[in-house]
């Protein structure tokens, strides 16, 4: 209950602003069309027209809601027009990519905090790797992987992993270095091995950083998957939905897919948040 009221309030405010935005942004088309037909527009005509255009600049909330309802509940979930179907395809690649990316990020971060050689040589190139515009090389990656016989989920997951490993890497490097010198000194007096220091000190104290990173990483992974769905033939998944909606100017379809994707991201981030709360609570830190 404590959660619901604020969310509803903010939501209501957003919907109101959104309606206002729809009217403002879509008005131009209404006026243009009227001018072409040589007619005048009354306020009520303006309101009703801007909220029901076929190709609105900004679809009205109820139009998107309708599109979402159609896509989520109006179809068998195995149908190609079902957002559940496309969402699942995207989600599965996202999760695989997130797992791969998180794993890689953590492994690299551990390496970097333990080996100066890795710190000095890997970090700059990890940074450089992220500045390569993925959408530009994704098609080549897909082509190369396809010629190696790697198709299906994996190429998409790899691109998702590529985008999600970096936030995890940056956060974990910081987190693994967060213990203060007294905490480290204690383990030194026990002559704890690097592995033990990692398990007993560095990992626990990096948790707040890790979870902040995981939230960013899981969102990045979803974006990666969607980006990868374009050159993968743009046939299935929310990315394909977005794109094909965009070819045919089906604004409502774009927004429905967009919302599904965002909802997916929000749910994933929310799940990470719940795990965070449970973990930190058990660690006595929350």
């Amino acid at each position: 209950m404590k959660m619901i009221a604020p969310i509803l309030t903010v939501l209501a405010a957003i919907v109101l602003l959104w309606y206002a935005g729809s009217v403002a942004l879509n008005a131009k088309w209404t006026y243009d069309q009227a001018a072409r037909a040589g007619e005048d527009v009354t306020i009520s005509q303006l309101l009703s027209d801007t909220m029901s255009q076929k190709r609105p600049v900004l679809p009205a909330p109820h139009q998107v809601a309708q599109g979402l309802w159609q896509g989520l509940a109006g179809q068998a979930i195995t149908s190609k027009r079902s957002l559940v179907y496309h969402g699942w395809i995207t989600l599965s690649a996202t999760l695989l990519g997130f797992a791969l990316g998180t794993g890689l990020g953590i492994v690299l971060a551990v390496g970097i905090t333990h080996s100066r050689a890795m710190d000095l040589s890997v970090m700059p190139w990890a940074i450089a790797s992220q500045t390569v515009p993925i959408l530009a090389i994704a098609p080549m990656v897909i082509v190369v992987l396809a010629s190696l016989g790697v198709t299906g989920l994996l190429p998409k997951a790899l691109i998702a992993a590529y985008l999600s490993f970096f936030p995890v890497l940056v956060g974990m490097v910081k987190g693994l270095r967060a213990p203060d010198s007294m905490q480290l000194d204690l383990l030194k007096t026990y002559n704890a091995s690097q592995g033990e220091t990692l398990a007993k000190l560095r990992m626990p104290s990096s948790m707040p950083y890790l979870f902040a990173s995981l939230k960013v990483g899981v969102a990045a992974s979803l974006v990666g998957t969607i980006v990868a769905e374009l050159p993968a033939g743009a046939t299935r998944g929310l990315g394909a939905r977005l794109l094909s909606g965009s070819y045919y100017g089906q604004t409502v379809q774009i927004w429905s897919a967009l919302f599904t994707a965002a909802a997916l991201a929000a749910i994933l981030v929310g799940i990470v948040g719940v795990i965070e709360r449970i973990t930190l609570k058990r660690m006595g830190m929350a």
Partner: protein
Amino acid sequence: MGWAIFAIVFWLCAWGANAWMARRYGHQRWAQFAIPALFGITVLLLWEGLVLGFGISPVILPAPSQIAQTFAQSGPILREDFVQTILKGALSGYVIGCGAAIVVAVLIDRSPFLQRGLLPIGNFVAALPIVGVAPILVMWFGFDWQSKAAVVVVMVFFPVLVNMVAGLAATDHLQRDLMATYSASYWQGLIKLRLPAAMPFLFNGLKIATTLALIGAIVAEFFGSPTRGMGFRISTAVGQLDLPLVWSEITVAALAGSGFYGAVALLEKLVTFWHPSQRARA
């Protein structure tokens, strides 16, 4: 084949040299440049060797030497694109996006009401995938750099927000109690305690955002642009199979991105010198 073998042998040697250098001279300034440089040279050599050794078609992956040639010849184009995409699109979007995220994080932190109401919805809005957002923003903000900046704003917002919110919560009991005994106002507590304490987290977000800003600005140009800009050039050149130009642009992006990241990391070092993660290596 010979090329490929040479490249791999060189790689192994360089790896060994690097490990040795890091162990012996890791704390010296020159080594901190030499090691990543050697690593980079190794990667490039490996790449050149594999491309030549396996006769990979240049329309799939051009050799670094070829890229370097094109890079040297395309100075004016690269500069024009750099200004359009990085200086106008990425940088302005970065500043606005990070600024907005910081402000919103503070607002969220200030009001439990907003925290409960805005954070979930903020997560939602900010996690909108770029490929869906870009066409819409191009439609709203036009073809020029403004729409690219808008995409960057959307992209960098979330990482900075999440980190900043985590950072603002990263003070310990004692530190907060001290402020309470001074009956510090909210703003005083924010400025004197919570903002400084949040800096290590904030910089995490800012660092991640540097690379995201570049990706955002470049990718947004795929969805409509004037006839300049790195994303425009990349997609056009891919269509023309001019891959050396594509990789030249990518090189510019990588250099600019590393520079950008480096600048933020340097700032971080100056601002959060007191954090154990910085002190340990001082």
